[in-house]
């Protein structure tokens, strides 16, 4: 297992290099002179020249990339053009609310998604099954920002149960987490349902029933565990969606996280911060999916990594 973890960590390196090339390449698409964009309209020609030199923009493209990647490897993504502070520092200071939001949304999605998926599969073709199917369809089709606004309208404006915006307390986390997690809940429920329906047809489930085990014991001990593996894959992939969705959710609920900061930075054309934020969020996505891969071995004893 240790060897496998080391191998997987090493395999991350080319992927990270690839992601860095994509992000670096995308930033080359900025029309006109990037130095002028960074300096803004108030900067002088000398400022533009200084920025161009400090970022290596006067060098060939491959040297520029090398400069970018070698600095990024030690956490140097340049300085925010808005605050003058290092981009990494700006990112780090806003990670906590976003991590809280993504974790809460993922937790809700896993708990609700699995429960509803199991109920839906076990009671196939019942009213509950149809209800879960319809709600799941709405869940995956509704824009996350609209779901958030509708929750705000219902729970804050009309019922007055929850605060509409802000962060820092549990009550301010509930709505954003529910809104962000709604689509993932639906996807996990659908995956759990189809996975469980597949497993329930297997011989070992029939054997467990023939032994006289209680139906819920058969489902909990024999069926659900085997249906978990594809579901866990989906959970890992959902983390990427949650990171993207957090940008919209934080904007809707005015939460001061990485997502809302990214939007502000895009509007301010703060390229170093945009570059750092997207790169680090992509790294977080890759690391979570590595952890998901490692979780397979825990869930399925047949999987042994070498």
């Amino acid at each position, binding site marked *: 297992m240790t060897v496998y973890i080391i191998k997987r960590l090493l395999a991350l390196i*080319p*992927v990270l290099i*690839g*992601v860095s*090339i*994509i*992000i670096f390449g*995308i*930033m*080359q*698409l*900025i*029309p006109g002179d990037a130095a002028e964009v960074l300096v803004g309209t108030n900067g002088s020609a000398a400022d533009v020249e200084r920025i161009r030199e400090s970022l290596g923009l006067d060098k060939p493209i491959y040297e520029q990339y090398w400069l970018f990647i070698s600095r990024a490897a030690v956490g140097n993504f340049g300085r925010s053009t808005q605050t003058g502070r290092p981009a990494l520092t700006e990112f780090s200071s806003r990670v906590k609310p976003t991590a809280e939001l993504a974790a809460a949304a993922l937790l809700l999605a896993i708990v609700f998604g699995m429960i509803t998926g199991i109920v839906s599969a076990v009671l196939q073709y019942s009213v509950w099954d149809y209800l879960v199917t319809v709600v799941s*369809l*709405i869940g*995956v*089709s*509704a*824009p*996350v*920002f*609209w779901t958030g*606004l*509708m929750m*705000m*309208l219902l729970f804050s*404006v009309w019922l007055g149960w929850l605060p509409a915006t802000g962060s820092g307390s549990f009550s301010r986390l509930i709505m954003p987490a529910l809104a962000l997690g709604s*689509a993932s809940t639906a*996807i996990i429920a*659908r995956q759990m349902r*189809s996975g469980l329906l597949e497993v329930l047809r297997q011989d070992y489930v029939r054997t467990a029933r023939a032994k006289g085990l209680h139906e819920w014991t058969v489902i909990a001990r024999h069926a659900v565990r085997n249906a978990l593996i594809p579901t866990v*894959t*989906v959970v890992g*992939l*959902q983390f*990427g*969606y949650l*990171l*993207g*969705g957090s*940008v*919209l959710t934080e*904007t*809707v609920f005015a939460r001061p996280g990485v997502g809302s900061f*990214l*939007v502000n930075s*895009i*509007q301010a054309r703060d*390229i170093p911060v*945009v570059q750092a934020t*997207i790169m680090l*969020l*992509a790294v977080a*996505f*890759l690391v979570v999916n590595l952890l998901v891969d490692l979780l397979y071995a825990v869930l399925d004893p047949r999987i042994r990594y070498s």
Partner: protein
Amino acid sequence: MHDAGELNRDDVTEQPVAVATGSAKFRTPELAGNRPRRRFFRRFRRSKTAMIGLVIIIVCVLMALLAPLVAPDNPTQISLGEALQSPSLKHLLGTDELGRDTLSRLLWGSRLTLLITCGAVLIALVIGAALGVVAGFRGGWTDAIIMRGIDMLLAMPTFLLAIAIVAALGPGTINVIIAVGVASVSAFARIAHGAALSVKEEDYVLSARAIGARDGHIMWRHMLPNCFAPLLVQTTLRLATAILTASGLSFLGLGPQPPTPEWGAMLSAGRTYLTSNPQLTIIPGLAILFIAIAFNLFGDGLRDALDPRLMS
């Protein structure tokens, strides 16, 4: 934004896909006749949910095409004296903060919303299918280079990738189409690659090679049509994802700029008046929801009709 397909959001894995095989459906038309096609249409028509999806899509497309004829007002006509009106006989869905008729903006907005969505998916389909088929057909280094590149793209969450592209290109309709299109390429490339790998060992491809057909001809004439089924399913499901991603970008102010009517931008502008005029937020959101549901239902129906083994 949702990879989602959300139904099939980012969960694009390279699995064996339903492609036409030499023995069954979707062989070249002259060999297969039209019986498989009839069977497909019969299966598709039997799916009530898919038909509901199709009807909603047709209504939306008609709405977009006929907007100049059926919209009661000019969607950009400012009339401050009529600002923020509730629904009435004169303005069936009320007016926005500048007194513009919400129904007219919704109808005209469907044009741009559908254009962005379809444009983005078309870009993704063309580039993704081309890359996937070339990689699958050529194999070796070409395959390795293209597919590792696609893996890199897949390593980035779709919405973040789209945001990064728009951040670089700047806000605007065309840039959103490009951003959402490029961010969706990887899904199509993986599916086309999987399909191409299955198809390239088929007798008709081997025969074409044997008679000396050029690579480009084999890929275009024999392989691409036989990768059609999974790509078609992915296209419809991706439309749902693309509309959510594109409207998300518009919501953030990165899409079409005012006063152009577009559903995501309308929703974003309306949220300032969530308390006093909630219909400004509810209506465009419902429009996005319905069309996304329709694409998902239609895509699921197509998938089930083309390959009943995948039926959920």
